[in-house]
């Protein structure tokens, strides 16, 4: 079976700094995969490279087709949605307008699996602040709006960059509950997290990234040895 996403020897460099050395990974249709690792491991750079937002070497295949040279907006139209780190809402626009913009990249000629109603049911709380300015919301509320906006493009693959960063524990729970339901309708998820335990508990498979390289692949069912996970995480 052709994986939905495949990275083949992906490399990202910023000037002389090598952020991602050699990453090969796969995400299958409907699968939740996490990428964990400490600060500066190259997790965000990997996601940005998938989205075409930074230059990279190596190959990125989406449904078996190389995405070389595609801009982020083109990937959005191919069914990849990203919730960037720091949420990146349009702060001066209302929540509603932010969500309307999320529907832009919806692919034509097919009934969306995820539509406005589905998202409204997923996050009923957004209805309470739909007419407020996005910049005035709390971090947790913004995160939900950012996820909702990404979902409204009806993606096949959702890239999430540290969705729990800076959130209160109860808000983190809300985010993971939502991810659970998103996975249930068949959207594949590639989740970047520093909170390794939470992320690996949620996902079927996970990769531990450290110093730009994959140190360990964790699969559900294989009894994870917490010590080897820690060792890989800290690059020992």
């Amino acid at each position, binding site marked *: 079976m052709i994986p939905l996403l495949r990275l083949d020897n992906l490399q990202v460099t910023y000037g002389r700094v090598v952020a991602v050395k050699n990453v090969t990974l796969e995400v299958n249709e409907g699968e939740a995969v996490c990428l964990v690792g400490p600060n500066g491991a190259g997790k965000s750079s990997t996601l940005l490279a998938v989205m075409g937002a930074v230059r990279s070497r190596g190959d990125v295949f989406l449904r078996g087709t190389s995405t070389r040279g595609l801009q982020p*907006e083109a990937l959005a139209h191919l069914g990849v949605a990203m919730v960037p780190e720091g949420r990146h809402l349009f702060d001066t*626009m209302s929540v509603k307008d932010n969500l309307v913009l999320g*529907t832009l990249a919806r692919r034509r000629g097919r009934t969306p699996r995820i539509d*406005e109603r589905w998202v409204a049911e997923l996050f*009923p709380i957004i209805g309470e602040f739909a007419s407020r*300015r996005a910049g005035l919301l709390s971090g947790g509320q913004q995160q939900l709006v950012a996820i909702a906006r990404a979902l409204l493009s009806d993606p096949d693959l959702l890239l999430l960059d540290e969705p729990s960063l800076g959130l209160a524990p109860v808000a983190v729970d809300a985010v993971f509950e939502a991810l659970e339901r998103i996975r249930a309708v068949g959207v594949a998820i590639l989740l970047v997290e520093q909170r390794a335990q939470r992320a690996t508990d949620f996902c079927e498979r996970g990769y531990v990234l450290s110093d730009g390289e994959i140190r360990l692949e964790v699969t559900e069912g294989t009894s994870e040895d917490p010590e080897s996970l820690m060792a890989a995480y800290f690059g020992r």
Partner: protein
Amino acid sequence: MRSKFRLVAELVGPLAAVAIVTVFGSTMSIAQQGNVTNILVTTTIVVALYVFTGNSGVMSFGQISFVAVGAFAAGILTAPTLTRQANMPSLFKFLSTTQISNFDSLLLGAGLGALFAFLVGVVLLRLSGLSAGIATFAVLEITYDVLSYWDKIGPGVMPVVLVPVTTTLVMGALGLGVAIVVAFAYQRTRSCRLLRATREDAVAAQGIGISIFQHRLIAFTISGAIAGFAGALFVHELGSISTGQVYIDLTFATLAMLVVGGTGSLWGAVLGGIALGVLESFLSNAENGVAIGSWHVTLPNGLSVVIVGVIMVVVLIFAPKGISGSHEFLERFFSHRPAKAGTGTEPESTAKMTDEESSEVPLSPRPTS
């Protein structure tokens, strides 16, 4: 309703300002009328700058190139053919013999401005931030050099002379009015809305599938068309044109007007153009001596430029969004009112899409339980 009024004000405000200036101008002496016409034409250029810079958030120092192209094309092709053959003997044959009407030359200016801007934009608009700004400046330099030295397309270092003078006060006002209507209409388009989203957050905009390049290119081309049109108006106002008149001085004068008025709104562009224009022409009159009541003042030469510079710095410090606050005309007046009973929690809803438009999309994220 509320947003309808707001929309009408957005267009009528700038047009009314132009009408007031024109009516005042018409009561003045012929010499002063010339100054007022110049203010109107310069403000047309400011509107052109605004269409790109205001909506995209990217500074461009190159828009005067499009003014130059419009001005030279309109000037050369409307000057008497005999003058052309005498003053510009090396011109390409079609440039030396084709004669077009003054009205056609305005359309030609707009068309060439748009074409040139499109070609430049295709190459440059993939850049962003500072590099885009510097690259547009390079375009200005190249245009200036080519126009100054290539005598097959122009008079070289000499000015184009004996261009029919048809940009009167009223024509200047009409020209500016057309530019305002075009800028306003563009602002209503989907492409402009999306461009404004990229201005606010480029990362997020690309992430949701907006092509920054495509929408910037559209704005750049429309801006080029208005700039070329303004160039044609300009040459018919002056009756002659030389490359030095459409170069750095004009670039900075018009950028100052845009910044002082407020980069983010059409109202700001028009207000800045008119306000600084009036001030500059008053000050340059004062350099020749003016009577304020019984008090006769003569300012030292060159002081007007200094004063305008100081005003720009003061505005940047105390009102970084310009004297309009980058709001449209009466925008704050309308948006201070609560939107609907119960949801009026937003004192400053400057959302780029008004409630009215967004509700057309059947999005109702309400609790379903």
